[in-house]
């Protein structure tokens, strides 16, 4: 019984990390119908950026992490304006290929700059702290913080989308870009802001990824895969659905790993496929579209 509770608990907390991976992906797809294949690599890029800020400038990790939020926003803004805007159009293939190329460029750029060595962000012992819950159960402080951060990010994004003028404009552009332009909405600028926001969320994800596990320049695509699975399980266009999707994926992986460590990833993928077959639109699909 304790083992079962433990598996679910750890899985739910792991789901928080996957929801953080997925939130930015979901945001970008929701606003501009762009599938960003470089999303995972951008998370890894943010992690290396934090590492560089701590090593080169000697900044404490929390400061470096906070600094990464506006930095990644700026990178996202510029990326959208300079690289992605020119290829966005009716045809979905050019932007897809562009982000695929971007993924390769980021991976190789990081390899060139940081070598293939495994790295981690060091929090000075915080990463190994845990909270005993009694009955032989304990949860790690970092996983708990990750989960709370995921909830915070999703609450913030939901508020942004449904309670601000900017969010209204995001939804309007997503509904009907042509009419949105007639409302005075400059959708190119708005897309750039959306990409900036998504990459800021990537920075949050990168912080927790780097604190919890090792990373190297090649792990981006696997993070993208988890993010995809979380978004699809949850249902496209729903941020809370994305959190639910992350949790389902996290529990499946933890359960798989408990049976046999080799089955961790396989169990996640199998549950993903099962849900895709049973509910092709995900657990919480948006009512429209």
């Amino acid at each position, binding site marked *: 019984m304790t083992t079962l509770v433990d598996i679910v608990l750890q899985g739910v907390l792991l789901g928080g990390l996957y929801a953080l991976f997925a939130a930015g992906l979901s945001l970008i797809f929701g606003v501009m119908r762009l599938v960003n294949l470089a999303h995972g690599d951008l998370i890894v890029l943010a992690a290396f950026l934090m590492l560089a800020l701590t090593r080169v400038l000697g900044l404490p990790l929390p400061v470096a992490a906070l600094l990464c939020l506006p930095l990644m926003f700026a990178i996202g803004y510029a990326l959208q304006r300079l690289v992605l805007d020119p290829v966005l159009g009716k045809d979905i293939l050019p932007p897809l290929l562009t982000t695929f190329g971007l993924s390769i460029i980021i991976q190789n750029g990081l390899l060139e700059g940081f070598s293939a060595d495994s790295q981690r962000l060091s929090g000075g012992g915080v990463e190994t702290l845990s909270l005993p819950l009694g009955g032989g159960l304990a949860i790690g402080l970092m996983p708990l913080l990750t989960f709370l951060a995921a909830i915070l990010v999703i609450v913030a994004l939901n508020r942004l989308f449904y309670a601000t*003028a900017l969010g*209204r*404009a995001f*939804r*309007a552009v*997503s*509904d*009907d870009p*042509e*009419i*949105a*332009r*007639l*409302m*005075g*909405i*400059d*959708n190119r600028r708005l897309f750039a802001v959306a990409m900036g926001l998504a990459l800021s969320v990537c920075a949050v994800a990168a912080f927790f990824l780097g604190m919890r596990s090792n990373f190297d320049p090649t792990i981006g695509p696997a993070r993208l895969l988890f993010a995809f699975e979380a978004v699809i399980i949850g249902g496209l266009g729903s941020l809370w659905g994305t959190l639910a999707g992350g949790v389902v994926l996290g529990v499946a992986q933890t359960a798989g790993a408990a049976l046999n460590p080799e089955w961790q990833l396989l169990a996640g993928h199998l549950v993903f496929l099962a849900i895709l077959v049973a509910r092709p639109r995900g657990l919480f699909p948006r009512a*429209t579209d």
Partner: protein
Amino acid sequence: MALLEISALDAFYGDFQALFGASLRLDTGEALAVIGSNGAGKSTLLKALTGLLPARADAIRFDGAAIGGLPASEIMKRGIAMVPEGRRLFPSLSVEENLLIGGWGRTGTGHWSLESLYRLFPVLKERRHSPGTALSGGQQQMVAIGRALMSNPALLLCDEISLGLAPVVVRDIYGALPAIRAEGTAVVLVEQDIVQALAVCDRVICLQEGRVTLEGEPADLTRDAIQRAYFGR
């Protein structure tokens, strides 16, 4: 001084030319009806005017400035708002949010705000939290007009606002026009319903196959002249 001056405007969809040297002039506060059969170029004219189709810069002058070919969002900020054909409300926005988004690029200084629009169309106040697309056709048209007015435009473009609506509803919608014009807003009304259009406008132009074939004041135009301009016979 003319508020809007269109001179020798050509417009294209790819290789297909839809407007051939169209010209028109509109004074501040004036109402102009643009009539013509399907495919005559009426909607094309509005698309070029709002920046959704490319146009030569000096072919369209608004408020003294050449605005042809500017981005749509920029043209809107200068004071041209559009009620698009088919209403095109944003489905994921509520009635009130649809209205609010109309003021995103420009709020202007003028009469129109949520309160004054709810006075003009009281039914929208009751339905303000419903999704825009859950309303009846007539109510949706009111939202679309209100959305355009939220920017307090100097020029309001209405594309087929009577399309697909019951006659009694059309009467309601047209009933709002005097209140809109009373604020000094110029109106361009694109209509297939000629009787309706002539009744409320100061001047009328007729398009046929992308060319202006008739221009004048409703009182001076005979049915025969309009019919000839409309059908080319």
